[in-house]
């Protein structure tokens, strides 16, 4: 090892943060290099002294201050217990699952009604001529107070009867 390399290792050698094998070769270098040895001694002294100073100048809280700091921390906010505390897997999975559920529900909400309409045969193209007849008014019907309208589904046979008044407003039958 040359002096440059040795000197780069001295700060960590002073705190024994390098492998023992390296320490041995560094010590071997010191045998023939008083300059590096001197540098090492200087690092050792600095570290010893600074540690000493830090320990001597250690401060503590005044009990009153410490209690106040604790009280303020507790007052500030209740610890938030996440609803996923008991979730045994990664929390990311739970959140993505939740996200997928939301997307699925949204899609069902948008596409859903058109599917059920089709299934019930309520699509406009599904009316038979007979059913369409109901929409056309005849002279006698104009006298009537109430008009009934029946829609029958071709596939399911589901029958819906609407009662409409003169103004074609839906009548509620008791």
């Amino acid at each position, binding site marked *: 090892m040359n002096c440059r390399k040795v000197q780069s290792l001295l*700060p960590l050698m002073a*705190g024994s*943060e390098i492998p023992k094998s390296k320490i041995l070769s560094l010590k071997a270098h010191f045998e023939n290099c008083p300059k590096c040895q001197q540098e090492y001694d200087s690092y050792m002294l600095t570290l010893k002294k600074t540690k000493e100073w*830090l320990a001597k100048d250690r*401060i503590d809280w*005044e009990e009153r201050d410490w209690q106040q700091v604790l009280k303020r*921390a507790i007052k500030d*906010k209740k610890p938030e217990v996440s609803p996923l505390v008991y979730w045994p897997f990664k929390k990311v999975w739970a959140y993505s699952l939740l996200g997928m559920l939301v997307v699925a529900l949204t899609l069902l909400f948008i596409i859903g009604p058109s599917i059920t309409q089709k299934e019930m045969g309520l699509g406009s193209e599904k009316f038979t001529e007979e059913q369409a007849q109901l929409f056309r008014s005849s002279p006698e019907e104009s006298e009537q107070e109430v008009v009934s309208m029946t829609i029958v589904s071709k596939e399911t046979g589901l029958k819906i009867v609407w009662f409409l008044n003169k103004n074609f407003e839906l009548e509620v039958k008791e």
Partner: protein
Amino acid sequence: MEMKSEDELVEEVLNGNHRSFELLLQPYRQGLLNMANRMTGNLEEAKEVCQEVLIKVYKHLDKFKKGRSFKSWIYRITVNSAYDSLRKKKKYENFVESQKKIGFSASYDPEKQLLNREIRAKIETCLRDLSPKEKATFLLRDGEGFSIEEASEILKCSSMSVRTHLSRARKKIREQFEKINFANTREVRR
């Protein structure tokens, strides 16, 4: 009285036991204050940092992973809060000067204060050229006695990076230390 584990205390705090919060923090109250004090170079600022730390710890206690080191977790929050404080007030470059103006807080014992004034000035001089990261690394290792691995967990960096910062810090400190020593020997000769 039976000693409760930190995980147990955490659980109790989460269940609303305030006394357990104090018990949980008791072993670290001094360490946190000293770490914050050295990082900011100002006791009042350090107390504010500690207040911030305790609020964060209480608020986010459910995010602490049981079985991990609570000590490392709380020091990590302290170092980050100190960084924030330094950034916010942009005081870092001038902290030595501001320290001189503010003087020492009344919470120091006056007798001890006189004795320690010299030491404190020496520490401040030694730390003056360190970057916040170098300072945090040095204080964790040589002030608080954390291992390289623990420091790397606290600082969320590799142990290689901890070594680099620690090495740089000690080099800068030695330069200042030599100056202090040189001045002292001249003083004695006179």
